């Protein structure tokens, strides 16, 4: 299918090039082979400018219609996420308006004021009023965006420990994630990669002598109770990684040698998220694509693809080596009861060590 489409498109392009050569050829009849633009060149290219303006508009509309209704654009799964989305929408509207107007002026002027023999341009070098206007308008618009942006940023980044957030450590290594909970005391034990002892299964380098570390819980899935603030402390053991949780509008780099952090409050459980219309639509769409692909695979005698079920993910978003593209972990948001039941089943650090 893709191969067929490619051939069709290449064919169209070839025809387009051929047609354009012909247009330019016809325009040249009876004109010397002077390589400076003449009136006919000006006219053709002026019309093409107008055509290009339409192309930009059509492309914009097409992109919005086909891909603009993105699940990740407007259904944040965290409390601060909707604020980010609002700011995003406002910025997008500003961009859209400015883009539409300026591209129109640029291409329309190029069309309208195309060169003709004997015409003389207007000697117009300055206009202080005009220039003041288009300095001041961006100043006002940008001031608004800056102020709104700064308030949003500050409210996201200022995590207060007074809200009694759940403390979780997200630990990155080439090429997977681990999670450490503080346990009953909600306090993470001290840790450093120098304390890693593979033989004893102390894979995160947790300080075995630290009393706070004894009840820590180390797992390979991030479970979060809905509605409760979580403060994620991040570590990396080898190279830079970045914990990108697009559904929660959250991202922070994991830096070897220092602890970074990002706090947010999940507002919807994984189960509820799967029932939202956007996600249902997205999942159906993906499953249709996967079914089609499975038919192709079956024809080649390969195993079919599993159907997709929605899950929140944390993705690595800082180039970290060969398998960077495949370094992700499930995030499960659940009710407090479900979370409590799950965490009660996990082994505490002191019991997980091989003595």
């Amino acid at each position: 299918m893709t191969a067929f489409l490619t051939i069709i498109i290449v064919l169209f392009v070839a025809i387009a090039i051929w047609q354009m050569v012909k247009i330019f050829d016809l325009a040249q009849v009876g004109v010397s082979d002077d390589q400076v633009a003449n009136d006919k060149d000006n006219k053709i290219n002026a019309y093409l400018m107008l055509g290009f303006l339409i192309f930009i508009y059509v492309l914009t509309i097409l992109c919005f219609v086909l891909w603009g209704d993105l699940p990740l654009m407007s259904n944040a799964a965290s409390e601060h996420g909707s604020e980010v989305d609002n700011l995003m929408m406002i910025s997008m509207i500003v961009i859209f308006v400015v883009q539409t107007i300026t591209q129109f002026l640029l291409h329309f002027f190029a069309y309208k004021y195309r060169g003709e023999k004997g015409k003389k341009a207007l000697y117009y070098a300055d206009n202080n009023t005009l220039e003041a206007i288009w300095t001041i308008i961006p100043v006002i618009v940008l001031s608004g965006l800056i102020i709104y942006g700064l308030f949003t940023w500050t409210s996201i980044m200022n995590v207060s420990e007074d809200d009694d957030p759940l403390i979780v450590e997200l630990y990155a290594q080439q090429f997977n994630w681990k999670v450490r909970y503080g346990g009953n005391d909600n306090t993470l034990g001290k840790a450093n990669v120098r304390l890693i002892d593979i033989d004893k299964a102390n894979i995160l380098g947790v300080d075995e002598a630290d009393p706070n570390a004894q009840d820590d819980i180390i797992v390979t899935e991030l479970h979060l109770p809905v509605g409760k603030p979580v403060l994620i402390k991040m570590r990396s053991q080898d190279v830079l990684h970045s914990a990108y949780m697009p559904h929660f509008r959250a991202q922070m780099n994991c830096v070897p040698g220092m602890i970074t952090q990002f706090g947010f409050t999940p507002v919807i459980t994984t189960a509820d998220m799967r029932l939202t219309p956007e996600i249902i639509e997205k999942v159906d769409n993906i499953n249709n694509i996967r079914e089609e692909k499975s038919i192709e695979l079956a024809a080649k005698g390969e195993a079919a693809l599993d159907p997709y079920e929605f899950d929140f993910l944390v993705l690595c978003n800082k180039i970290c080596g060969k398998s960077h593209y495949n370094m992700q972990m499930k995030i499960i948001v659940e009710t407090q009861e479900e979370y409590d039941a799950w965490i009660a089943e996990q082994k505490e650090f002191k019991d997980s060590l091989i003595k």
Partner: protein
Amino acid sequence: MSTHADIHAHDDDHGHHPKETFMTKYIFSQDHKMIAKQYLITGTLMGIIGVLMSIMFRIQIAWPEEPNILFEALLGKWAPGGVMDADIYLALVTIHGTIMVFFVLTAGLSGTFSNLLIPLQIGARDMASGFLNMVSYWLFFLSSILMVCSLFVEAGPAAAGWTIYPPLSALPMAQGGSGLGMTIWLVSMAIFIASSLLGSLNYVVTVINLRTKGMSMTRLPLTIWAFFVTAIIGLVSFPVLLSAALLLIMDRSFGTSFFLSDIFIQGEVLHYQGGSPVLFEHLFWFLGHPEVYIVILPAMGLVSEIMATNSRKPIFGYRAMIASILAIAFLSTIVWGHHMFVSGMNPFLGSVFTFTTLLIAIPSAVKAFNWITTLWRGNIQMNPAMLFSIGFVSTFITGGLTGIILGDSALDINVHDTYFVIAHFHLVMGISALYGMFAGIYHWYPKMFGRMLNKKMGYIHFWITAISAYGVFFPMHFIGMAGLPRRYYSNSSFPLFDDLANVNVVITIFAIIGGAVQIIYLYNFFASMFYGKKAVQNPWRSTTLEWTTPVEHLHGNWPGAIPHVYRWSYDYSKPGHDTDFVPQNVPLKEGEEELHH
């Protein structure tokens, strides 16, 4: 100062240069015009490599892990059975970025046109130091050779991204490309920086000291202003990258811990303690951000000049254009932190950098509006150079506007390092600067080679490039907003992004078309050197001094005395004159008033 005096002594005894041999004329030339051509051709060859790489990794993204004859032929052992290896994918991405940003758009663009135009447009016989200029080119050539050699290293070329963040770039055990490949990358870049600094120093000194009589700073064409300010930014920021590269070399080879601390990799703890990768990020972006203005300012200068000439109108708001160049240059050095909003640096710094970053939109907006107004009521000559200039303004606006989102720390959280970023910077500095470069080449080709480029091929080149550039980078915004991270070898290892696969196919098809049409340009470029129509002295009827020199090049530029300058460079369609342009060396008529003096 001896050089200064030396060059002015030539005012009278023109043309009595020592006899030129093949070696001194074509290879170790000290003539700025020949050096410009050397820069352009080296940059073009590097550009071919860079674009070919991008086509290869775009094919991998669109049809992940499918065998391809192209890979088998070009990648050899890196594509067993024709399937691209994940390590070489990252290497292609890395070297593509390095080559395009530094070797094509810094050396190829600024190196070519600063060298060609500074002496010619300010009325000087040559650069302040022809010798340093020659050394600058040959250092650039050496660094290009080294960068190309690094592609053939056993363990693979550098693959840590063009930003080479440690520890990934510092530890050979983290990635094959961080061994010898990265060492050569660093050495190549250190030499490149030395070349760039010598060049910049020369440009600054030349513009300050060697302007001809009457060429005051406010009569300079905007090209010269752009090159001048670009050179200053380069002098301020490139040394910082050099220091980052040197410290990284120390960490890699001599066991220091500037950027590394607490690392456990492949079963062992390394000795590094107390360093921070964030420090490297600061040092890198202290150059890295001004670098995008080092790339775009010369393009802006070229476009301003070409737009005025082809609109047959003065550039609108000449002084505002200079002021905005200066404002952009100043702001460019205090916005680097917007690349680091989620690096782990203090969030308060994020606020400061958001503020300074969004300020840069103001001078940029002024420039865009001034270009649009320059077109208004013009008599627009649609030469290929003019089309690329209009295309430049279009992509600069489209790409620049999304900077409002990326520069805003709160919004950057979610689109940081996604395809949204790729779309943004490719449009605003990649494609735009490339358009600026093409515009410059079409416009000054007659000056460089004495022949004209074929305009018909130029038109086809522009229109197909313009359509495919939008076709490639516009949809990328949307997959970025959907959360697709950049630098992923394959997007099909988990199903979250399966619905974006078809967008990637569309993008790749446009990329292949856009890449293929450059063949027409390359043919036009090389064939016209020998078979192009012979150029007349001033084919675009331009006002600036370079068109007062003879078509045949001679060392020293003008056969007679250097012309004096009596007016600014934008007297197009001035009332009271018969022609629609008045060259800068034409004295004011009686009673004629000069604008801006």
